[in-house]
């Protein structure tokens, strides 16, 4: 367990070092590509925090991403609101958490688990996307909202302006690093151990005095809040928000990122998101219709060959060599 923690921290430090070095070799455009990929990486980590620790799959996680995005857009596009960027971020986080709390309360305390939970959250995602399309007076309908300003605020009187490539890259990287580290320290300690126990046998955990539905609910709300934060960051960087951001496709993609990166590792899903989006861009420039086909194939191969994700390659090789040595 301790060795596992050390390995995780080592990989984390390497990733942070790479993120720090990247601006020295990359141009502005490449920075924005990685920046956007990192935001989706944060989104993937938020799903992994819930799915990886509870074993319950949320198939509508993009709903929280979209809710965060729309709240951020509506707050920052309204000229009457002061400190719009900060208020927008706070509102996005709170809004996503609030919706998760309402839905989660009825599901968890109503004893909905497993595939039933997955199906209900799938419907939730579809409802959110439909609401974004239909409520056009507020959400702009199918075409969404455009012209969302970049994040800007003051730190001790010094203005922080994220309209440039490098500052926005640094800002996003820092948030992703802090959030992933925070989620990891929550999920490895007492909170995570009890969640694993609940995943193993919820009735038993309850018989020991643990309020399992409440713990699942809080985990779900926290996960949704981070997803909302990612959504808010994304719309500010992209400058627009559209119903797709809460759609079924994004909900599916985020599951693939987590599965490819390795469920329960938090860092793996971030890498999975970056890796798959890079692959998507490369392959789509080659032939746009090739990508969905390849994505499906990659997913199937990963599930069969590396069910614990790409981060498990090292552990797999190690156990393979150990097995060889023992056999000799």
């Amino acid at each position, binding site marked *: 367990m301790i060795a596992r923690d050390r390995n995780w921290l080592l990989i984390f430090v390497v990733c942070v070092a790479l993120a720090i070095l990247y601006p020295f070799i990359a141009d502005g455009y490449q920075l924005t590509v990685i920046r956007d990929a990192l935001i989706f990486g944060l989104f993937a980590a938020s799903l992994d925090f819930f799915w990886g620790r509870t074993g319950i799959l949320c198939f509508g996680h993009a709903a929280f991403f979209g809710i965060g995005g729309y709240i951020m857009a509506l707050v920052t596009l309204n000229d009457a609101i002061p400190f719009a960027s900060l208020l927008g971020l706070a509102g996005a986080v709170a809004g996503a958490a609030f919706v998760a709390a309402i839905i989660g309360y009825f599901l968890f305390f109503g004893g909905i688990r497993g595939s039933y939970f997955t199906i209900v959250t799938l419907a939730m995602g579809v409802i959110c996307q439909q609401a974004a399309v239909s409520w056009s007076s507020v959400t702009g309908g199918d075409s969404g909202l455009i012209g969302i300003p970049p994040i800007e605020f003051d730190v001790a009187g010094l203005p922080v302006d994220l309209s440039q490539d490098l500052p926005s890259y640094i800002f996003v990287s820092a948030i992703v690093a802090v959030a992933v580290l925070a989620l990891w320290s929550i999920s490895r300690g*007492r909170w995570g*151990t009890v969640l694993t126990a609940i995943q193993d046998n919820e009735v*038993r955990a*309850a*018989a*020991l005095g643990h309020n399992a539905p409440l713990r699942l609910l809080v985990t779900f709300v926290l996960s949704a809040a981070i997803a909302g934060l990612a959504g808010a960051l994304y719309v500010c960087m992209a400058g627009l928000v559209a119903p797709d951001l809460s759609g079924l496709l994004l909900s599916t993609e985020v599951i693939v990122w987590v599965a490819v990166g390795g469920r329960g590792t938090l860092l793996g899903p971030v890498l999975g998101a970056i890796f798959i989006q890079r692959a998507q861009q490369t392959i789509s420039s080659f032939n746009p219709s090739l990508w969905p086909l390849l994505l499906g194939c990659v997913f199937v191969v990963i599930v069969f060959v590396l069910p614990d994700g790409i981060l498990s390659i090292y552990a797999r090789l190690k156990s393979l060599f150990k097995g060889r040595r023992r056999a000799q």
Partner: protein
Amino acid sequence: MSDVLLQAENVGIRFGGLQALEALDLTVRDKELCCIIGPNGAGKSTFLNVLTGTLRPTSGSVRFRGRDIAGLPLHRIARLGIARKFQIPSVFPSLSVEDNLKVARWGAPSPVRPVAELLELVALTNRAATLAGELAHGQKQWLEIGMALAIEPRLLLLDEPTAGMTPQETLATAEMLLRLKGEFSIVAVEHDIRFVRALNCETLVLHQGRRLRSGPFHDIETDEMVRDVYLGRR
């Protein structure tokens, strides 16, 4: 009667057309050890489910320290001081033995025994880092007892604690319980007569959902009617 911990009065439960339990009474005093025995299908586990509040009786009541516990959520019942060991070992297989005990302690309102002492009590000190899913069957049962102890119960309910154990493990379990006897009340549901004989305590015999006999075990053991039921003559 201020030392009465658990009192079941006139408990009856009906599943559709089946009267699973009928007019059962049970009084467990503080720090008392008692056994519920009976052939398969006698209603032992059902009665235990009623005693832990997981099943609401269709008639009668179950009071723990004067409070009706029927239908309370599981974690509330645990926090009242009722610990339960399930029939099928239900430890957390993906956690280590030590983490299993830690999860149990964290659920308790005021845990007293440190994890090291719990490991000692259930003879698992040298397996602390093993994943619970990899333990032998008997050791899983002991780990479960250890987890039940971790919540510092007033009352420990054991559902067939020796199911699937070897005779040596069964006797070791009985010794473990006898050592713990003076600390809290224990109710064990069992059909292994050797185990109940080793405990030699107040015993309630169930048959077809009703009380057949109750009293000290040596009286029960010599009872003609109990022998008939166990040998299947009735």
